[in-house]
């Protein structure tokens, strides 16, 4: 029987990530890929196509125009798929809360699996979020 746990187990084995980074979200999260924090040791790989991805990382402030593209990417990803919203700008508009062209509630556009606060979030925070997913799957009942 295909249970939620079995599906999720496949997801947490190696999380392949497609990045949708705007503005400083991109430059601030580069160290996660670099050798110092090295996300590949946890099985996190940045892939070049949404069709290979399990997770969508969204960072930086989002505009209605960029969210349309993010929705297209989300729809192209195979299930199970998960969205991680990183940084305060992505979640609430952050310091651009009073701008006329930023997204204020990201959950109106894509279903968000986990919010990672911070400006920007530390690499450790991202690994902690991924670890929480692993723990969560281990605790799921297999039924």
């Amino acid at each position, binding site marked *: 029987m295909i249970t939620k746990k079995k599906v999720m187990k496949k997801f947490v084995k190696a999380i392949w990530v497609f990045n949708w980074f705007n503005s400083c979200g991109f430059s601030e999260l580069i160290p996660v890929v670099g050798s110092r924090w090295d996300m590949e040791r946890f099985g996190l790989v940045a892939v070049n196509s949404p069709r290979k991805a399990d997770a969508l990382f969204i960072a930086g402030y989002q505009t209605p125009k960029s969210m349309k593209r993010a929705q297209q990417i989300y729809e192209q990803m195979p299930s199970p798929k998960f969205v991680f919203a990183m940084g305060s700008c992505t979640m609430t508009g952050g310091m651009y809360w*009073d701008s006329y062209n930023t997204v204020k509630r990201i959950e109106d556009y894509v279903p968000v699996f986990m919010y990672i606060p911070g400006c920007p979030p530390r690499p450790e925070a991202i690994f902690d979020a991924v670890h929480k997913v692993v723990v969560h799957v281990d605790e799921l009942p297999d039924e």
Partner: protein
Amino acid sequence: MSEKSKHDKNQTIEEKLIEDLKSKLGTTVNYQKERRLWMTIDPDLIVETCTKAYELGFEHLSTISVTDWLKEGKHEVTYHLWSYTHNHLLTIKTKIDRKSPKISSINSIWGGNAETCERECHELFGVKFEGNPNLTPLFLEDWDGPPPFLKDFNWREFVKKEMYDQNNPREKVYFEVKK
């Protein structure tokens, strides 16, 4: 060649260029600072002046910008032209009415380059460029408010009214921000 004589030579070239522009364009060209020339023209003459400037070697359109003069009731449209032959920047300024902002498009000279600049000015200031076939929004897709860069557009109030809900506990804090 010494520094001084080199400077003098540059100055004479500059004076010559200004004289040349004055006689061909038929308006005064002001020397703003080194290699920067300004001129103010009537909005009806924009296509004519730009064509002449193009023929004189100002073949690169750097950008088009708009300034909103609220008290005056005018929009100032500014065209920045660069010349690779003279190494000079020519700034053409023209003022149009703020209530019905209309000006002829210069995409007959610079094509797609001018078209994109004009699209931006159209979406941010509402200036209508007559003759531009594509004035669709560049950044503000699905935008139905007023042009956001206008001085009399209170964007903070607009955002609070349109995008936030005072009864939402997460968003209540935005309404408590002091001005």
